[in-house]
């Protein structure tokens, strides 16, 4: 048995980011990591960006709260946590935006004007698009406040996870220099070329959205500019932290070809983006034989016709499961080789570890505690 590789991460990292394709058990893995860290005595926040509400529900935390909610003592004890604390929060873009407005707006009147703006009301509630900016904002806020030793981030499925990382770059490119000024009504100081460019933009926006909407849009831009700037600034700081050695990216996959392809693609992307890739977690695999053998029917049992007949149908399933075990074990070896080949940054060598299929029938929290045990050994 090799030395545990997940424990050091859980003990030392400030941010753990779980990425992977949909349906690979990413949310469960993220939650189990958070449980494990809390069990080790750390103050942990499980933050989910995924619109799927599973994590919060499993921990008995209501969605759509303004702030993280502490997981109840009973639940913590059931999961074997006595020393640390665990909070959970499902990102709510509208609430993050509202907090940012309150922080940034010059005075009460400016705040109210923004809150009353028709566009603001709609835009801040949209999940599509707002999530990526507000996720970085929230992450930055939590780390800055020093309330938590570790934030475990459950990202949306692979493709959207990249949006979330690259969102700040897009925002920065819009806010940079004078670009954004062009969307605002010209002032006395506006130069000739800027005025012309601004007029072109207004005519495009008017044609697209109608003149009245375009004016609303302009007002919205001027009101929201400071908030966006604040988002942009924090997002670049959060991005810097995500690139640092105190962060670990874990790529969760199942043995399915598609999920593995996504995980490998994601490894490449994290390395390209210079993010600290720490390892693969192969979920729901049969890589560990766990003492299983091929079944045989004893002489006495074979005499029972009903059992002999049922066993004949059972046997092919056993063969298929054993084949999967061999395939998953080989896959784990492949992932380990890929991990060793590229870990991004100059951190420790990345790993690949298999996690068992969750026992069916167990309550979700019990299942997560079992997964946390497996992670501690991994």
């Amino acid at each position, binding site marked *: 048995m090799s030395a545990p590789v997940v424990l050091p991460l859980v003990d030392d990292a400030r941010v753990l980011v779980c990425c992977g394709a949909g349906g690979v058990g990413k949310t469960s893995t993220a939650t189990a990591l958070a449980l494990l860290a809390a069990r080790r005595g750390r103050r942990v926040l499980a933050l989910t960006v995924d619109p799927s509400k599973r994590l919060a529900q499993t921990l008995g935390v209501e969605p759509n709260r303004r702030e993280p909610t502490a997981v109840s003592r009973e639940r913590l004890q059931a999961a074997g946590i006595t020393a640390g604390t665990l909070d959970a929060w499902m990102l709510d873009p509208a609430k993050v935006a509202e907090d940012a407005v309150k922080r940034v707006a010059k005075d009460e009147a400016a705040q109210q004007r923004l809150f009353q703006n028709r566009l603001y009301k709609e835009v801040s509630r949209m999940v599509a698009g707002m999530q990526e900016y507000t996720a970085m904002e929230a992450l930055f806020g939590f780390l800055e406040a020093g309330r938590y030793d570790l934030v475990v981030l459950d990202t949306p499925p692979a493709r959207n996870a990249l949006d979330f990382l690259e969102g700040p770059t897009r925002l920065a490119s819009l806010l940079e220099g004078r670009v954004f000024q062009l969307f605002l009504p010209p002032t006395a100081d506006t130069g000739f070329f800027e005025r012309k460019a601004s007029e072109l933009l207004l005519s495009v926006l008017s044609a697209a959205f109608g003149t009245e909407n375009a004016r609303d849009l302009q007002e919205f831009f001027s009101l929201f500019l400071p908030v966006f700037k604040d988002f942009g600034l924090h997002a670049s700081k959060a991005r810097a932290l995500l690139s640092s050695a105190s962060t670990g990216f874990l790529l969760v996959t199942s043995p399915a070809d598609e999920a593995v392809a996504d995980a490998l693609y994601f490894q490449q992307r994290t390395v390209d983006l210079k993010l600290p890739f720490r390892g693969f977690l192969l979920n729901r695999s049969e890589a560990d034989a766990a003492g299983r053998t091929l079944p045989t029917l004893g002489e006495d049992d074979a005499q029972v016709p*009903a059992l002999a007949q049922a066993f004949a149908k059972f046997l092919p399933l*056993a063969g*298929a*499961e054993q084949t999967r075990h061999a395939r998953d074990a080989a896959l784990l070896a492949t992932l380990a080789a890929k991990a060793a080949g590229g870990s991004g940054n100059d951190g420790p060598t990345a790993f690949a570890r298999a996690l068992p299929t969750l026992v069916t029938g167990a309550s979700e929290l019990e299942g997560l505690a079992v997964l946390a045990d497996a992670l501690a050994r991994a």
Partner: protein
Amino acid sequence: MSAIAPFNPRILLVTGKGGVGRSTTAAALGHAFASAGEAVLLLEIGGVGDDASALARAFGRVRLPTKPERIDTAARPDRGAIFGALLLANTGHERFLRRVLPGGPLVAAALRNDALQRLLNAAPSFQEMGIFYHLLTILRETENQRFRWDRVIIDMPATGHTLALTELPAQLLRLLPNGFIGEELRAGRTLLEDRTQTGAVVVTLPERLPITESRELAQGLAKSGVGLCAYVVNKMPATDFSKEERKVLDAWLADSPPLFGRGDYLRSADAKGLARELDGDGAPLVLLPELALSGPALPPALIPYLTKGPS
């Protein structure tokens, strides 16, 4: 009426939890309709991460083309063929600007305008709006006085993001009720909510969590006004144990050491019951078997189970 009941609407939104086989199902539907002589267009949302496309892999490709291109090789009757393309925000933005701006020079200036391009890339929901508009233009394309595409099948993103997209037209309409964009959003919304035109196909697996989530997804879709045309339960175990067989096996397994096959047996024993939970939930149930095939060979092998109709 469709050649393949219950998949009647011209526009099929294939959705479900991650990893349940949405892309496989979308590809299988494509094969089924093309075999029935239809010109099929398979779409998925493009953008960052285009390199990892399960739908493209189902046709032996790395990614789908940016413009509709034939992606199958089989000889088909009539118009039968499968085309594939990515839905791209940029294409949508460009088509939209061409449509609303008076005259070519302004279009060219707008497309060249760096500030506008940056806004389209960064402002919340502009990406989704572009994708939505690209889709709308594709759905309207005609050729010789008929729709260019007999059937448009969209491999949607996983649950939460599907809902974010189907809710978008209504949300944006509140935001931008006037002007050309308002008209187009209304047209798009009408199309999405017309059950004869658009239907959702919710794909799931015969396992506890996916079954529960697929019902939640169906409720979410109903809220956003999109009709559900079928539940597809993918990877139904091939072996089915009778009540008597289960009784003797359960007793025998209770006395056995850890064995290969036990996990699969328990899963097969539960599968039918779990799938049946979706029965009578307002949409026909289609069961697809777990086949020992992968890659491009899998989707066409599923045709018989789709065309058989509801089980």
